[in-house]
């Protein structure tokens, strides 16, 4: 444990520091705006520290692997958290007395996500996931009034605890099989362990898959998604959909790659089944959904189905093209989903009536900025060219073709075709003329919307720089 390691850990330390400062501030004087500013500053500093840590990339003890990839995602989710922060301000200013804790929870959750991303060891993965999760339960249940947030929180808590149990049990089995807790170690002994006791190894990794699959809301572990998405306050939903999911996916892919699990055909078939199920089920569920938050929940199910295709391709391709694709896809997904939730929270806020798609009628004429941003987001989710979503799909299909996964690709095409329908429904609703109240949003939210829309278009129409950059990771 030398000095450079601390520099490598800079983001984690910075976040922890922020958390501490927040607690102190809360104990001195309760003031939301101050807490908000502290958190914002903390995030910005962490962002900076992430770039600073680039020069010191190294495995930090056995637990954490600080490399370009993890640092990139660290900064990515920090940006996402910043957006969440911006949205939270409006949302919770209406709440009662206690608000500062929310920011604390946010910071802790982000901390958990960062640990999760950098984890290279079952324990760190467990720690990160739980830190992130526990904080999230509280964030979901944060509103003092209303039943939906609470219900969502309880459901999420129970179900994800159950999932964690599965995960842990899986780890235990793998540990029993290999005697290793670190990914690298597992990767080294996996083949041998399988030879010795296949059932143990497979059952273990299968349970891990199930546990993580739940967090990614992959069918058939998807059922919690709509309820939690709807129940949670919109900014939190955004956070859950982007930060937590992508962090978990990064962890999964690390585990899958370093743990050399892709060598097991059985696991692969399992992944294939999950992928197909999620693509179809997600889109079918979304088809006629009225509530936009639930709809986005379903669409996210489908999107992680698409993403799984890349993971499956690991068996046939060298890791770097795969990780590149994952990077691009997750980035595109985060940006797009955030844009969507930003608009939802700007337009609908926490009012379930306003979250109904029909309530979006006439948005094009009453609030052109929001409408166009949401349109761009929807087109990106649908994978129309010139948007980030298209390039993401481009990557997936390319990878799929390169590894000859024709069946999966066929399903992907069908699924995307179905998906177009419900994304268009939203756009169509917005174009229809109706007198809708133009309640205004504050400038930060507007800024966020514009930035996100711009980056979606940028990623879609001029991806070369980013691809080049992602290639280096």
């Amino acid at each position, binding site marked *: 444990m030398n000095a450079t390691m601390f520099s490598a850990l800079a983001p984690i330390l910075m976040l922890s520091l922020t958390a501490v400062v927040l607690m102190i501030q809360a104990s001195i004087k309760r003031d939301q705006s101050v807490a908000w500013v502290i958190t914002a500053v903390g995030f910005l500093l962490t962002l900076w520290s992430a770039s600073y840590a680039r020069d010191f990339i190294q495995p930090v003890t056995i637990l954490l692997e600080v490399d370009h990839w993890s640092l990139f995602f660290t900064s990515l989710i920090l940006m996402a958290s910043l957006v969440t922060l911006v949205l939270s301000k409006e949302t919770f200013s209406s709440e009662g007395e206690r608000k500062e804790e929310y920011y604390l929870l946010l910071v802790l959750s982000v901390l958990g996500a960062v640990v999760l991303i950098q984890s290279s060891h079952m324990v760190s993965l467990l720690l990160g996931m739980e830190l992130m999760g526990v904080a999230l339960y509280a964030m979901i249940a944060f509103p003092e009034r209303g039943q939906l947030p609470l219900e969502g929180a309880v459901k999420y808590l129970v179900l994800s605890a159950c999932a964690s149990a599965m995960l842990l049990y899986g780890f235990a089995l793998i540990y029993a099989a290999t005697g290793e807790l670190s990914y690298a170690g597992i990767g080294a002994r996996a083949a041998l362990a399988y030879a010795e006791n296949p*059932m143990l190894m497979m059952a273990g990794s*299968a349970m891990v898959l199930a546990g993580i699959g739940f967090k990614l809301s992959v069918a058939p572990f998807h059922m919690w998604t709509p309820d939690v998405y709807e129940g949670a306050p919109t900014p939190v939903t955004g956070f859950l959909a982007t930060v937590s999911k992508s962090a978990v996916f990064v962890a999964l892919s690390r585990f899958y790659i370093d743990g050399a699990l892709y060598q097991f055909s059985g696991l692969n078939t399992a992944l294939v089944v999950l992928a197909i199920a999620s693509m179809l089920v997600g889109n079918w569920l979304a088809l006629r959904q009225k509530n936009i938050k639930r709809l986005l929940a379903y669409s996210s199910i489908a999107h992680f189905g698409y993403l799984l295709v890349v993971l499956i391709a690991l068996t046939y391709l060298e890791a770097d093209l795969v990780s590149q694709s994952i990077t691009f896809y997750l980035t595109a997904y985060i940006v797009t989903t955030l844009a969507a939730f930003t608009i939802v929270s700007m337009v609908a806020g926490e009012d379930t009536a306003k979250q109904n798609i029909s309530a979006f009628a006439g948005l094009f004429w009453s609030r052109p900025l929001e409408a166009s941003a949401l349109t761009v987001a929807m087109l990106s989710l649908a994978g129309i060219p010139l948007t980030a979503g298209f390039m993401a799909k481009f990557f997936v299909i390319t990878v799929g073709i390169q590894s000859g996964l024709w069946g999966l690709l066929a399903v992907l095409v069908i699924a995307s075709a179905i998906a177009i329908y419900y994304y268009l429904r939203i756009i169509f609703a917005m174009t229809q003329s109706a007198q809708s109240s133009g309640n205004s949003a504050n400038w930060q939210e507007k800024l966020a919307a514009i930035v996100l829309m711009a980056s979606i278009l940028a990623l879609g129409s001029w991806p070369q720089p980013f691809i080049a950059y992602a290639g280096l990771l």
Partner: protein
Amino acid sequence: MSETIWLIPLIPLLSSVTLMLVGTRLKASQVGALGVGSVGISALLTLLLATEFMQNQQVIQLSLWTWMEVAGFAPGISFYFDGLTLVMMSVITGVGFLIHLFSTEFMEKDPSYARYFAYLNMFVAAMLVLVMADNLLLLYLGWEGVGVCSYLLVGFWYQHNANGYAARKAFIVTRIGDTAMAMGLLLLFTELGTLDIQTMVGEADQTWQVGATVPTIACLLLVCGAVGKSAQLPLHTWLPDAMAGPTPVSALIHAATMVTAGVYLIARTHELFLLAPIAMTVVAVIGITTSLMAAFTALMQTDIKRILAYSTISQIGYMFLALGVGAWSAGIFHLMTHAFFKALLFLGSGAIIHCLHHEHNIFKMGGLRTRMPVTFWSFMIGSSALAALPMTSGFFSKDQILLQAYQFPEIGPGLWVAGLLGALLTAIYSFRLVFVVFFGSVNTEPDKDTGWRMAVPLSILCLLAMVGGWFMIPVSEVFPASDGSHPAHWVEYVSISVPIVGVLVAYLIFYTGQLKVDRLANSSFGKSLGKLWLSGWGIDLLYDRLFVKPYYGLANKLKSEPVDALYGLIVTINQTLNQWLSSAQSGRMRWYIASMVAGLILVIMLAANLPEGAL
């Protein structure tokens, strides 16, 4: 002169365009002047051309520009002028001019006077292109062009749906033939590599020997086209309905010129037909059958124009007979004379209809001999020419046809007898018309007599119908000379006497009434036969049942887009799946956990390859 023949079709065309563009702003007199004048000029030019041609029997070929040039397919906008063309052109412009003149009075009350002349001029232009074309594609242009003009003019009084229907029927029925003809063009080009008539027939002679399959098929396809345009069996049904148009139109299009285009086509491509004897026999048979069928039908009609329409069909049948038996020049000759006397008859009937405030039923007329002398005489002359009484124009042409038919190998005499029967019937129905309309008691008082603009054309046509038979049509160069052999004299005598008998019969039945046919007519057999003839052998009804109704039915069936139902199915599938899955989202936590557990078990089984193990 020979360099400027392109003016002849152009002038009517220009006047037509002018009338379309500014017609509504012109005074009636100006419209008339333009309409008649343009055709008049063309007629004059044709006359000049004719005189020139008479001196130097020289064929003119004039190419304006290449229409299109694709992979060796290079039809030109180019004209070919020879004796045959001259005959046709003179008929079109000459008779056309007279009819235009007649129209100025006939139509003067009509609100859309300009539109009428615009269409009529365009028709003349298109018809001229048809006969002047030196390649089959340009001919096809004129061919379709006259078709459209006929459609427009038949449906000229578009306010009445009946007229619209008649017009559509006319166009579509002929279109069927035209499409077959187009196929013929495709075949000819694919086989011979050109559509230029002169080179084509040259090619044909080298490529095929007589009786080969390809030329036979090609000729039969062309015949289909001709049958459609010339209202022969089985595509004749449109012509009687086409009488819905203004009478001068019927005179010009449906008697004198357009309906004879089929005859022209076959005559023009006769070298091809000479290679396909079967096709020629078919033509002859079609011709004679049609002419008999039509003659019987004409016997029973009461509408003056329908009588004339059926007689036209029947006369064109004679022309087809002529072509079929290789009596080319006789056919063309009859075409010309027929143009004269049939135009005369139509214009006459037009005059009657005009003066009897649009009365069509002959039995509501009568005794017009004294009231409308000009018309009476034109009808007398016209009918005698139609019945081919000696010394009239019709006599010469029809006589030639019958004699040459007699000489036709094998079935010749049969054709001849049938032809005679036709001639007899012709005489009867044409004079039935005369006696019923002009003799006997006056049933409807004409409110006026014909003005000069009607009288002049009538009298000129009378003249032509009388002396037309002495014209020498300059087609000797075009057609192979027929061997000068004549059949036995008794054949000629019979041929001459038959029409006279016919007139007598008509006289006895319809004038003096000495010859009673009531018993026969009232017998159940007679009644049904009469009905059958009146309805034109029920062919219209047959087609209606066979083609029209089924097509409507089909269209209505398919209207709901069966193909779309397929996609509808996909939609329903997705909807049902959506419903099932949504109902699974019950919000019950235990249920969610159950699904997770199920998933877990599934994943474990898959991971451990248990399915294979189990199997």
